[in-house]
């Protein structure tokens, strides 16, 4: 998006600027810049303090108590770090962290492979690639909750589209397996739906990475008789790496927080094999109403994601600078 001053009506203003003594301009501009800056920034800050920071502090405070929000008038007792100790020694919490890790790692691996592969193919610019790219992008814009809900229909054992398509391809029986009800399949079912939904996201970022590579690098490599495979390993991959890492960051954070799609697709079941951290948190906070305990869990989750993101961004910057 380039803006050239010739095209804009305000170009006249730019030219006029040259006619005025620079001191005047500086005076007018410098008049109350500092107060103006705060005037512009304060409203959003106030909102974020009220809706994000104040509640966060409240949650931290509650995490040291035995508060239960279904009994607001019960006497409040300070329990110190007991909630934190309980969480870290609770096998159910560790189980949900494992489920989350499985989900995050496998969705990232699959989406990177598929997304990068698709981007490489789309970058060949076959006829109609613009249209088909838009078609591929569709799932990404949809409501994860509504997506999770309608996939339960597609995964119906006998009548579901997915089961019938899978049975058709493998020659099996469409009622012979349950994607949602089976303890070994369910963790992969949520990975599958998330991959369906978010591969285009990675694809779009990779495509930007591929387009950022100057063509003359490839031309030079061609002169040097580098094989296409070698060109891929020494040019394409290193140049796209910062983009891939950015995609990993965004997908990692999003899927660590994942609640909506999985809650409607499997709601943590069967048993608790797909119970992600957020779903456990929701059970503790809004079904068992253990507000103090779940606040401590929320704080732990936030510190985890925030810390991991910080370390990761540092690594990303190191790669970018290389």
């Amino acid at each position, binding site marked *: 998006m380039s803006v050239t001053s010739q095209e804009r009506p305000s170009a006249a203003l730019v030219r006029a600027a040259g006619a005025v003594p620079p001191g005047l301009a500086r005076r007018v501009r410098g008049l109350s810049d500092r107060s103006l800056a705060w005037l512009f920034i304060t409203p*959003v800050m106030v909102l974020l303090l009220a809706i994000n920071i104040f*509640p966060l502090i409240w949650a931290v405070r509650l995490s040291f108590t035995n508060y239960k929000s279904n009994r607001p008038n019960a006497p409040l007792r300070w329990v110190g770090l007991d909630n934190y100790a309980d969480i870290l020694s609770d096998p159910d919490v560790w189980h949900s962290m494992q489920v989350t890790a499985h989900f995050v790692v496998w969705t990232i691996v699959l989406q990177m492979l598929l997304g990068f592969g698709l981007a490489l193919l789309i970058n060949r610019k076959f006829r109609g690639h613009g249209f088909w790219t838009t078609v591929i992008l569709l799932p990404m814009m949809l409501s994860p909750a509504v997506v999770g809900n309608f996939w339960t229909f597609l995964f119906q054992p006998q009548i579901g589209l997915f089961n019938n398509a899978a049975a058709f391809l493998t020659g099996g029986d469409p009622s012979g397996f349950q994607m949602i009800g089976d303890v070994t399949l369910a963790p992969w079912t949520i990975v599958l739906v998330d991959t369906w939904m978010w591969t285009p996201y990675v694809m779009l970022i990779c495509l930007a990475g591929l387009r950022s590579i100057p063509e003359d690098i490839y031309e030079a490599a061609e002169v040097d008789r580098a094989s296409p495979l070698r060109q891929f390993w020494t040019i394409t991959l290193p140049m796209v790496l910062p983009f891939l890492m950015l995609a990993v960051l965004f997908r990692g954070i999003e899927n660590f927080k994942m609640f909506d799609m999985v809650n409607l697709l499997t709601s943590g079941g069967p048993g608790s094999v797909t119970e992600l951290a957020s779903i456990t948190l929701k059970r503790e906070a809004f079904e068992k109403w253990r507000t103090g305990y779940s606040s401590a869990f929320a704080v732990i989750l936030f510190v985890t994601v925030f810390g991991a993101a910080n370390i990761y961004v540092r690594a990303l910057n190191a790669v970018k600078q290389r």
Partner: protein
Amino acid sequence: MSAPPASHLATARSIVEASPRSRAAAGLVVVAYALVTVAPLLWIVATSFKSPSDAIAYPPKVLFQPTLEGWVNLFTVRTRQSPEFMATLPPPETWWDRLARSHDMVIAGPSKVAPRFVNSLVVGFGSTFLAVLLGTLAAYGFSRFRVPLADDLLFFILSTRMMPPIAVAIPIYLMYRELGLNDTYMGLILLYTAVNASLSVWLLKGFMDEIPREYEEAALVDGYTRLQAFRKVVLPQAITGIAATAIFCLVFSWNEYAFALLLTSGNAQTMPPFIPFIIGEGGQDWPAVAAATTLFLVPMAAFTVILRKHLLRGITFGAVRK
């Protein structure tokens, strides 16, 4: 992307310019992926035009007699009546009355879908308006003034987005209970505004950074005040960016599920937590659910096409621009 220079055409082909055959192969794979990815969506749209028995037929019906029963069921509440009672009724006045009666049903009144849909619209547009308003101001502040600790403030704004929604909802729920904001438009709008503020500040700052400063400086010299320059010079230039940002905010609010599930129950409930609870006689009324899903997803599909050019920017918070 530009065509290779003419002199290059005679020499060996690089992977920059794919051969026609590899290009066609790439196209074939991408089109196949696109068709697989879009099939579930088309299946849902098709299901909304099936009769309930066709929707759960085995094997699944690709060809079927289309009916609007699902759509009528979505928007109405019906009661089953005996044929004797039906005979006493005056003849049906509308096509939907007739359709319901052909299944021994009488329409008792409208369902809750329309109010829920209106809630989604009110909350979506309300929070989008506020987020864009606050975001535009803050983005201008960050883009044009030297704000102390600007990078830290911007990172703080972004980090509010890293919290798992359930973790945010625990203290928000308590705070809203104190303030009487649970299950109100105001509560949901404020929360969505706060969540969207991060996106809106980051995106709009990127757009504003691209507007040359000289325009405003010239306007200031011409005697405009800062605010006038902002309104008459910067805003018109940023309008595309503002529109794109607004759509991204709207998409988030429209699709959001976790907060809506936990903080609303009736009056202010939006579509995503409502859709899974559309049930008919004896279990889920799949054509009606599919109709609601279609109704809900179509605007997002339209936005995907409209936003195509800015999509990359939007989904990476402005980190990747081209």
